[in-house]
């Protein structure tokens, strides 16, 4: 069983689309969570996923790095493409996928280790051969955290404030040199000042990374993202249950100023959700 090499060097002709789903449906046991999702995530841009709670934003995000594999009874139909690789192919090595497609979680979850080791661990297990000190410094600088922590690298990551912890988690993700960073409501546990810091950081990281962010905060989506997908709960005709669908996927400016879909308009003007 040979898994395809996932490094971008082998990803064929350059394309602007990094991640692409085709007719993606997700089921939790018998109930369907997402139906017929087809979107394409553009390279070096920030794509926001918005929508009312329970519409499956996070589920969709977790499809991109196969985090959903950890949930028992979850079934995925359709295809997810990372460059030219089918992520749902049974030959794909999920461990390699997760290295190329990193993730930042809703609640900051630093390891109960020193700040230094929080960054270094991921690199170490992935066989990093370079100068570790240099890598740690580079990642912390990139995450705009270096000046705040450079004198206490041996202190536990759990001693930082919430906003610092979240930036530490981002720095930790950067250390394994991913191509895509998935962010699952990264600011929902943070205060406004920390939120602003993380948003600035995202804007800055855009040059090197492709970012997909789930947010329940429409202002945030509007501030940071280039593209926005608005997910909606739609009555499923055959089952009579409500499942998540993509109502509209367009450039952020257009979606918020001139939405095509009436449901999107209703949502962004506050009539749904």
């Amino acid at each position, binding site marked *: 069983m040979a898994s395809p090499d996932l490094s971008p060097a082998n990803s064929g002709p350059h394309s602007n689309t990094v991640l692409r789903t085709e007719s993606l449906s997700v089921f939790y046991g018998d109930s369907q969570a997402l139906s017929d999702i087809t979107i394409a995530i553009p390279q070096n841009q920030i794509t926001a996923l918005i929508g009312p709670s329970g519409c499956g934003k996070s589920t969709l995000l977790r499809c991109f790095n196969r*985090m959903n594999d950890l949930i028992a009874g979850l079934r995925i139909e359709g295809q997810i493409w990372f460059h030219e690789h089918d992520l749902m192919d049974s030959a794909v090595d999920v*461990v*390699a996928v997760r290295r190329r497609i*990193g*993730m930042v*979680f809703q609640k900051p979850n630093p*390891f109960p280790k020193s700040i230094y080791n929080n960054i270094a661990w991921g690199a170490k*297990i*992935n066989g990093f051969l370079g100068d570790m000190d240099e890598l740690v410094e580079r990642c912390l600088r990139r995450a705009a955290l270096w000046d705040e922590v450079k004198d206490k690298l041996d202190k536990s990551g759990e001693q930082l404030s919430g906003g610092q912890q979240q930036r530490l988690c981002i720095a930790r993700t950067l250390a*394994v040199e991913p191509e895509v960073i998935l962010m699952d409501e990264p600011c929902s546990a943070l205060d406004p000042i920390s939120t602003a810091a993380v948003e600035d950081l995202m804007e800055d990281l855009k040059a090197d990374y492709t970012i997909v962010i789930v947010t329940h905060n429409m202002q945030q989506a509007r501030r940071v993202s280039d593209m926005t997908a608005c997910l909606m709960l739609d009555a499923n005709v055959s089952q009579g249950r409500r499942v998540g669908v993509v109502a509209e996927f367009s450039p952020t400016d257009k979606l918020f100023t001139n939405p095509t879909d009436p449901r999107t308009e209703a949502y962004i003007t506050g009539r749904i959700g």
Partner: protein
Amino acid sequence: MSVKSLNKPANWSSADPHFRPNRRRRAIMDPLFRWVCFFATFLGVVFLGTVLGAVFLRVLYPAGAGAKSGIPLGERFSDACALLRRLVVNKPGIEASEVGYRVGLVGSAWLLLFVILIAVPVGVGAALYLEEYTGKSRWKTLVQTNIANLAGVPSIVYGLLGLTLFQRGLGFKSLALGPCVLAGSLTLSLLILPVIVIATQEALRAVPQSLRLAALALGATRWQMIRDHLLPTAAPGILTGTILGVSRAIGETAPLLMVGAAASLLKVTRGPLDRYTALPVEIFYNAKEPDESFSTVAAGGILLLLCLLLTMNFFAIWIRQRTSKRPGLAGSMRTKRGG
């Protein structure tokens, strides 16, 4: 109802024709019940004190031949210390005044070593498998139910298993280990396996899911995640459960009686395939002696055993007090067994 009547509960019945709150009886029952319950709990301390006190006094005031009377307390203490020293150093003999537990202590040390080497990796491994490698499935339910039931099997039944399986090799000469340390250790390991598995599972469940996700999202394999994050975080809980399990193994007597622990062994055990005996087994045979002076020898042996076990128990409880939170209902399946 006036404010005044609130202050004087006894007057309530006259104040309100529809109720007879009977405050006086209730006001007596309430603290009475509290004290009954407290006393019941305090009995635990009393019993513990009685156990330790009775053993200690017997060592301090020896019975039977050679017992002295009317000597000062200081001399009694030095006599008791001399007795304990002798018990550690001497081998079994015929006279109560010269027997000791050296062979049993060495045997127990061998058992301790092998039980740790066998039961801890297997127990922690099985718990990791159940918690981290299997989702909800029939197979997991089967293994889980099986472990819960094994925890309630009387230790003497493990003795029968060890006797037939390890000592006699199911009747096949080539498989039979004979009455040796290894057979005893294997039996004790099976016996405490459920304790270690259940304790480790609880410790693993207490580790937040976000820690696992964080590691996996960086591209770690499951084993890298377990080795570098899960085990270090769950270590105090695993250690507590393991110490409690192992200390139970060291205090066990019944299964060892079945798996060939010798009543009276003169040769110190030198290897895993040697004949052996254990401290509690020697205590048992001394306690059974009709001669009263052996009662002091037994008490001395119990004192040695309790020192060992209480140190381990204190250590385990200390680790847990330092780190853990309140145990949930998950702890209620922690079954204990007889010996």
